């Protein structure tokens, strides 16, 4: 393993903006193609930020199979909480490359980004989700894949956000 300094983040930024765009457009199958085979998607409850999903109750803890099932469910009009789909708009800022390592031919990037996501639902309140994404992204052959997307929500009282029925 070799540490890489001064990794250029502009391509990475484009990549996560593209990811956000796919989610905003509900192009979930295309979104799945951005994921690594060992992908994990996690949203810890806000009193368990210092532990793991194996020891503590999270809000979401999907492995690569569960996320495919989540997408399968969300495409079904019987996923009533998201039918009709909510409209979402993800605003992503403060992108920071935390650490970059090279293992064999693979580059592994720990990336931080802040987000504000608005969710609009017919007949419902506007919900605002604020927090940070902790990404682990791999680069291989100039191709990015997401290995981890951990969503840290800032709200003290998560209750006010109601559901997290779409993919943050």
């Amino acid at each position, binding site marked *: 393993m070799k540490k890489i300094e001064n990794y250029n983040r502009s391509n990475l930024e484009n990549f996560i903006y593209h990811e956000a765009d796919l989610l905003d457009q509900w192009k979930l199958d295309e979104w799945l193609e951005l994921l690594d085979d060992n992908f994990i998607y996690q*949203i*810890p*409850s806000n*009193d*368990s930020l210092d*532990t793991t*999903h*194996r*020891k*503590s*109750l*999270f*809000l*979401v*803890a999907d492995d690569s199979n569960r996320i495919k*099932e*989540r997408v*399968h*469910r969300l495409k*079904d009009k*019987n*996923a*009533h*909480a*998201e039918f009709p789909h909510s409209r979402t708009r993800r605003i992503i800022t403060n992108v920071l490359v935390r650490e970059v390592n090279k293992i064999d031919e693979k580059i592994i990037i720990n990336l931080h980004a802040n987000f504000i996501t608005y969710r609009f639902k017919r*007949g*419902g*309140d506007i919900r605002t989700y604020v927090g940070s994404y902790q990404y682990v992204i791999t680069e291989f052959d100039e191709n990015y894949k997401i290995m981890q997307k951990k969503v840290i929500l800032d709200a*003290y*009282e*998560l*209750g*006010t*956000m*109601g*559901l*997290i*029925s779409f993919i943050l």
Partner: protein
Amino acid sequence: MNSDHYVINDTKNFDFQVNRRSLVDQSILDLEMEKIFDKCWIYVGHESEVKTVGDFKTRNVCGRPVILCRDMNSNIRVYLNACRHRAAVVCRESEGNTRSFFCFYHGWSYNINGELDGVPGKASYPPSFDPSKLGLAEPAHVDSYKGFIFLTFNQNASSLVDYLAGATEYIDLIVDQSPSGKMEVIKGTQEYDIKANWKLLVENSFDDYHLITTHSTWLNYMKRSGVEIKKPEKGHLMPSHGIGKVLGNGHAVIDNVNFRGRPVAKWIPLYGESSKLEIEKIREELTNRLGSERSQRVAETNRNLVIFPNLVLNDGSAVTIRTFHPVRPDLMNVTAWALGPIEESEVARAVRLDSFLTFYGPGGFATPDDVEALESVQKGMATFKEVPWSVMSRGMSKDGEQLNTDELHLRAFWIRWKELMFNQIDL
């Protein structure tokens, strides 16, 4: 106000209807706070959440800020979180360990036994000022049953165990999942508001009639993961047999043959091959300890228990403690925790938590659709003047067994509600 304007219970003509005004009207909620929430035993928390002296959690119970605390003598205490001087909250953190509760406004402080032990400038108070009478106030009674802590603001309340009535049988079935009889609340709290009347979540929490249509995507997911979903028997709606049962004092339960897997202890493919042996071991311990009949009941049935008015223990894909408090007629705060045996191995604990998330919670595969259903009901409730009544008579004309998809258990809640709201009984 006539009670029959709210709940019609005509057993002769098999007619049971609930007036929708009871789900939209602020004056009804005000009355509920007085007649139900100020009178019943209400869930506060679990003993495992305050393990050592000085541990505390702050909560909102029946609209009151309270502190759940383990005092100097290791007793469980519940304090009203309000300074005796001007009522500012004396503990503003959600959890922690402390030696005192300090009101920053004027500096009054209390020890963890609730005693007032610091008053700046005490000399200016008249001689009648008596700090020993100004400790943190407590609810009329606090008691626990097998780790579950309840409070009541009702001075004349009967004992907790009398209040729980037949519900204790079902709490015992949960506690029996631990070899030592000790369960613990697992770290990690789920909170989600629902824009619906709190009584709708009572109904929803043990209403299996909605499962097939509301949760078809969850059932699909189960199927796709390798769980066998049998075709319902003739005249039934569910893939396995299940009954609704009334437990007294407004408590009721659905008691179902399990098809969806249980961390204690029925393995399904979703748990992964690597945990199969572990789940079998748990089952073996269960059988050795409880005998074949009871262990089968613990491991191969799942149960949704409603303890009147606002505690739900879902002993299903995991064990969920869920409680909820009304904020407005059309808004409630829901809090949920996972409960597990204290001696659970790391593998079994991980299975439990994973299993929990397949169904429950704001990001689960089922709960969001429940929330959507309740919010949808609440929106429709705006038509209550034109269409005042909801029918709740499923199973009413049948003799004998009531199914989980019938509504006997829902009616039990509403009958109790009516009795308390309209002074037909006095707690």
